[in-house]
């Protein structure tokens, strides 16, 4: 995996704004012979645009992961249910949405009026008043899925399409490196299970299944990014009402074992691991502090760790790395621009944030990134401007750090 040898490299977390016509093709469940050619050209465009915006480590914008409307916070995980067998949709369960699987969130309780206003207003953008907290996804129905049969990966063709589209798109683009995202076992095991005897067995089976996707990505020569917001955001959904940090840590420790199982035999230096505390535009008062989970995070067999650090709830946590040493050879990919505000980060602020991390963990160990995927979470025009600000800030930081 490339590191910042003579300047600060840039990347982002994955999701980028889909062109409207691609959203429509997905929405209408267009057959592959029409969808695929457009998907391929859209990916070629999005790779070119990342390179032109100054992003060094690029991806396919997650365009191969179906997004069926312009504002969509969930494609990063919902895509996988087109690629997994063993689940059944329960309509009753689906109607409850997220409530189907939370054990009670302290934040949702404390900020009930806010979340109710947000739900009734529908979707919106960051920090934009009553409709801003958008927590729905085009696939909210998927909360109604239950595991009722052996879990099996059936996405071989889909991941090959992803890999081929991206390979084709790279021809002619000057980029440093390329990554592809895939969902974590911890995220998958949130949905209820009726087939396996225990949640543990269920999680192992999911890890075995999703491992196939991980392998396909690495075999194709791409960096694998595992998306695991669940590792930190489950605290608020499952453990916060009782403030059960110990229970949460036990849960998280097992999830790390599961993801490491899924990563067996995959070279660590081809893997980066992403956490964030959920991308919805809410207060995030109940987020578990990074310091309470950073030791478990570092047990994940990945070389790069992508961690939200560019919003007002987590920005101060750069100091965690003063107390917790980033192990030799590892890379930190802090978020230095965020989808949580429509205001565009000033490049000087971006540079300040990067320099802070560089001083703590070493400039060669920092790759500047976003907090979370920008696509579906903020207006496309702002999303692209944020990537440009990220690249400009990285340039400013490089000139300070290598002068």
């Amino acid at each position, binding site marked *: 995996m490339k590191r910042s040898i003579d300047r600060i490299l840039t990347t982002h977390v994955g999701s980028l704004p889909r062109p409207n016509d691609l959203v429509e093709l997905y929405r209408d469940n267009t057959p592959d012979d029409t969808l695929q050619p457009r998907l391929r050209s859209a990916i070629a465009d999005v790779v070119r645009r990342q390179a032109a915006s100054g992003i060094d480590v690029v991806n396919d914008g997650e365009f191969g992961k179906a997004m069926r409307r312009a504002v969509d916070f969930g494609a990063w995980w919902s895509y996988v249910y087109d690629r997994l067998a063993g689940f059944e949709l329960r309509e009753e369960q689906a109607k409850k949405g997220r409530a189907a699987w939370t054990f009670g969130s302290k934040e949702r309780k404390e900020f009930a009026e806010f979340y109710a206003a947000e739900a009734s207003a529908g979707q919106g953008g960051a*920090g934009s008043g009553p409709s*801003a907290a958008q927590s729905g996804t085009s696939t909210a129905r998927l909360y109604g899925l239950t595991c009722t049969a052996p879990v099996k990966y059936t996405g071989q063709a889909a991941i090959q399409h992803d890999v081929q589209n991206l390979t084709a798109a790279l021809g002619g683009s000057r980029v440093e490196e390329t990554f592809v995202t895939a969902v974590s076992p911890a995220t998958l095991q949130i949905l209820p299970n009726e087939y396996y005897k225990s949640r543990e067995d269920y999680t192992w089976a999911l890890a075995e299944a999703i491992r196939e996707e991980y392998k396909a990505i690495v075999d194709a020569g791409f960096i694998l990014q595992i998306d695991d917001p669940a590792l930190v955001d489950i605290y608020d959904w499952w453990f916060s009402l009782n403030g059960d940090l110990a229970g949460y840590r036990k849960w998280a420790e097992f999830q790390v074992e599961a993801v490491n199982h899924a990563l067996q035999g995959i070279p660590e230096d081809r893997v980066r691991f992403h956490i964030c505390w959920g991308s919805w535009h809410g207060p995030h008062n109940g987020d578990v502090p990074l310091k309470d989970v950073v030791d478990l995070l570092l047990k994940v067999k990945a070389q790069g760790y992508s961690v939200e650090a560019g919003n*007002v*709830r987590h920005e101060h946590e750069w100091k965690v790395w003063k107390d917790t040493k980033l192990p030799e050879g590892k890379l930190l990919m802090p978020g230095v621009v965020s989808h*949580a505000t429509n205001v*565009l980060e*000033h490049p000087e602020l971006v540079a300040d944030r990067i320099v802070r991390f560089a001083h703590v963990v070493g400039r060669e160990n920092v790759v500047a990134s976003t907090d979370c995927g920008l696509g579906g979470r903020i207006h496309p025009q702002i999303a692209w401007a944020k990537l440009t600000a990220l690249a400009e800030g990285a340039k400013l930081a490089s000139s300070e750090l290598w002068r």
Partner: protein
Amino acid sequence: MRRSRDQIITTHVGSLSRPAELLALNNARASGAADAAAYATGLATAVADVVNKQREVGIDIPNDGEFGKPMSAAYDYGAWWNYAFERLDGFAAPDSIPESEHKKSTVAQLSLTSFARRRDWQRFSEFYQDPTSGLVGSAPARRARRPVCIGPIRYKGQAQTQADIANLKKAMTAADVEEGFMTSVAPASFARGEDLHYKSEEEFVAATAEAMREEYRAIIDAGLVLQIDDPSLPDNWDMIDPEPPLEEFKKFSRMRIDALNHALRGLPEDRIRYHICWGSWHGPHTTDIPLANIVDLVLAVRAQAYSVEAGNVRHEHEWRVWQDTKLPNGKILIPGVVSHATNVVEHPRLVADRIMRFAQVVGRENVIASTDCGLGGRIHTQIAWAKLAALAEGAKLATHELWQ
């Protein structure tokens, strides 16, 4: 004016979320259906509550939440200036006068364009014009024009201002609060509409200043700290299309600052704080003028304290401006350390870090921790109050470190 003698004290920029009952009263009043006594009682009760709530949450220098400045809906970005329309003679509702054409500025004669033609709004037009962007007050909703000046400007808001003052003072006594502030619009932030009466912009602004002086004086005479709200100083920059040469802009602004200072003549500087921000809408703000370019103008205002946006991602880095520009002796800086620009609630540790940075540059006794802008009408009420609580907690953490 209180300062941070042995702890970092806290305040905010002014607007707080109006309770539903008050919004209903405001609407009844606007439609002429209100019972004046019911409105007066409802307003006084709401002010008493909001002063109490500020004290409980840990705000040291509260205000009336700007409740006397009528807001008609839970989301409303304009009450801070348009309240003055009712309190000034000489203006007419814009729809009674034919609209002028979009003004393109020339160097010789800088002029402000319409809100929806701001440069940031043009650069990010897809976002600003997108009705599904979720942007409250998006461009299509910003068509409303400002009141047009059609005759001599005179202040006529004595009764309303006295009522506001009485409500706040009574609430402060009840809540055992020693110092409170009241906002009032700066002449140049109000006089941004068309003028069909005066011969020049200079005369127009000067007449507004002379009229508003009455309100400024009334607030100070009542023993309250006067806060002059003047986002126009920085945000006019974005309203001049194309971008003007800096020196021309400074001349344009200097005339407006001079008018304000004239309106403040003879009033005690240590009872006045001056607020600037770059406009409170939830947009990219890429065409905001850097603070470094106007800080000399800010400091030219005859006020003891300066309230400056510094808690959002476009302006956070500007704490460094105070490394190069010395805050004059005796002055106070009131930086924004929590912001309405994100629903995410600032972590108290981040708030403390921000306060510490300012304290280390200008001295702890010269910092009062505040918000970027008024929170009311700009963010959900539950989040607004959580942000004020985070502000107070952060100030405590910073105090602990600064006075250890």
